[in-house]
């Protein structure tokens, strides 16, 4: 019969246990993806004219103006006007993205209306191509566009400055169906621009 | 007795596999048209069609007769009848259906298709043939309507009659020989009526 005698592990036992714990720790760290620096807290400020990485986009915002008329010829309804931010936009990835991802990359500190004329909770611009004013519903790789970000606002609420937040997305599987896409937009940069004031008069456009 | 430490091994392996997150994905195939009520041209076919809204399940009881399937000659346009001229390689069919149904039963948003002798199925979809617009598929007359699926009815329009005829238009390949007409709203119920031969 073998009596059970509790034993305190000797020195050799301690070394073994210590080594095994280290193995476990190392294995645990390896499995969970390694050590990484914690993400920086809070967005940075970028000056106008500076290119910013807002993954997956590269954005440069240059200037802003208030206007009644867009480059595609459309004019703001009575009581309304546009704040238009000029800049450049490119995609830093190999797969084209849609308007949902592009739309989530920009927010502004404005009270805006959507395309149906309804007040928006969040000021999301219509991204247009400079020159013809055509809408850019997403963007493909290898193309750098001169863009105009269009926000529709109350004529009486045109500000002297506008701050545009640029958000970066994360590439991961959708929790709904597992497809890979860009998710979780988070503001990484803020650009404040002076807004050139509205012209004294509305252009003579078509009356409704 | 000493516990055999390695007896936990199989369980541990299973736990490791589970923890590694192998993805089991179950895909549900969309429900298809499975429940057929069949009939023949010229004979009234009694059918029950189940539809659902937030209030639950409802039944639509009706009788439908396939009156005729013929080449469409003209459709009613804005300024009167317009001649239908099918594009080369196509044919345009007019499918006449007669419904017998309580005027309070919603009949909107039905689907109609024409199945040919080769088993090909062409949907009635409206659209344009040359400059002529084919009327959209509708299982109740334009000017006399029953309720919609919320129970509301357009009071500017006259109520539907208990018995009425509608015409549906289907574009097919020019070598299609009509074999049957299918009518449905949502899966899984549908009515299929054989076209009379000869």
């Amino acid at each position: 019969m073998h009596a059970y005698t509790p034993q305190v592990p000797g020195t050799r036992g301690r070394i073994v246990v210590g080594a095994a714990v280290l193995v476990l720790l190392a294995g645990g760290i390896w499995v969970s993806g390694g050590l990484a620096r914690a993400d920086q807290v809070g967005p940075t400020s970028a000056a106008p004219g500076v290119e910013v990485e807002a993954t997956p986009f590269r954005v440069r915002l240059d200037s802003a103006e208030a206007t009644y008329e867009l480059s595609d010829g459309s004019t703001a309804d009575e009581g309304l006007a546009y704040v238009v931010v000029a800049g450049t936009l490119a995609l830093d990835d190999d797969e084209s993205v849609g308007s949902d991802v592009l739309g989530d990359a920009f927010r502004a500190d404005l009270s805006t209306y959507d395309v149906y004329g309804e007040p928006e909770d969040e000021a999301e611009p219509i991204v247009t191509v400079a020159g013809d004013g055509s809408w850019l519903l997403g963007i493909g790789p290898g193309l750098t566009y001169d863009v105009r970000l269009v926000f529709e606002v109350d004529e009486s609420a045109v500000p002297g400055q506008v701050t545009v937040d640029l958000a970066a997305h994360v590439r991961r599987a959708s929790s709904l169906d597992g497809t890979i896409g860009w998710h979780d937009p988070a503001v990484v940069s803020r650009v404040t621009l002076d807004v050139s004031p509205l012209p004294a008069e509305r252009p003579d456009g078509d009356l409704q | 007795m000493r516990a055999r430490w390695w007896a936990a091994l199989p369980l541990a392996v299973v736990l490791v596999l589970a923890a590694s997150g192998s993805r089991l994905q179950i895909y549900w195939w969309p429900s298809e048209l499975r429940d057929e009520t069949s009939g023949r041209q010229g004979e009234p076919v009694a059918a029950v069609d189940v539809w659902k809204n937030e209030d639950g399940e409802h039944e639509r009881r009706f009788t439908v007769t396939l009156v005729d399937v013929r080449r469409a000659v003209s459709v009613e346009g804005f300024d009167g009848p317009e001649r239908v001229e099918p594009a080369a390689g196509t044919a345009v069919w007019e499918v006449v259906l007669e419904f017998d149904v309580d005027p309070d039963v919603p009949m909107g948003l039905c689907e109609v298709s024409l199945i040919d002798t080769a088993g090909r199925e062409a949907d009635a979809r409206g659209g344009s043939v040359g400059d002529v617009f084919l009327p959209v598929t509708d299982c109740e007359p334009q000017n006399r309507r029953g309720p919609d699926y919320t129970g509301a009815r357009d009071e500017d329009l006259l109520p539907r009659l208990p018995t009425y005829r509608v015409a549906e238009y289907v574009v097919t390949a020019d070598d299609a020989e009509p074999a049957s007409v299918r009518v449905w709203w949502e899966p899984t119920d549908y009515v299929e009526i054989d076209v009379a031969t000869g």
Partner: protein
Amino acid sequence: MRARRLLALFLVAGALLALGAALDGWLPGDDDDPGSEPFLRPAAVGEPVRLTGMTVEVDSVQGSTALDDFGTELASPGVWVLVRYTVTPTDETDAIGFAQVVDDRGRTWSQQHGRSSNTCPVGPPGVRMGCVASFEVPSDAVDGLRIRLAPELEQRYGAVADVDLGLTDDDAAAFSGAPALEVPETTIGDR
């Protein structure tokens, strides 16, 4: 004795962790999408390709730096590539719902992204439907550009036509001097 048993236990635990890490790389993870690889059917312009429920054939390809969009000229920082193709559904009313171009670096430009588009109305079985897709791509994508066409936007489980548009760098250069592309109407039936 006890220390040796403990050692054995910890070593087995460590080995299992290592096994878990190895399996983690082997089994589908959060970033993989094993079911999504489409089945590609390569073809050339003018060659019919059988897909699920339809046959598709690319008819022609044109390019320019500008696209005429209802009277407005859309100038591109790259080039516009306009592809005309024919779809003949087999058994049911159907259309091509997915269109995308791919370059030899594997970059993709999909319909409805940016200003690219695909217009392909549904057609009945046995009828030739003439469809049109236009894509904006950088000039360096033109050489070896391919178009991928499939019935569904969600094309995980079916065949996808993978058509070499037969374009070279010479074509890319020619596109720079070409007049603005006019987008043709879609057609139904034989032309």
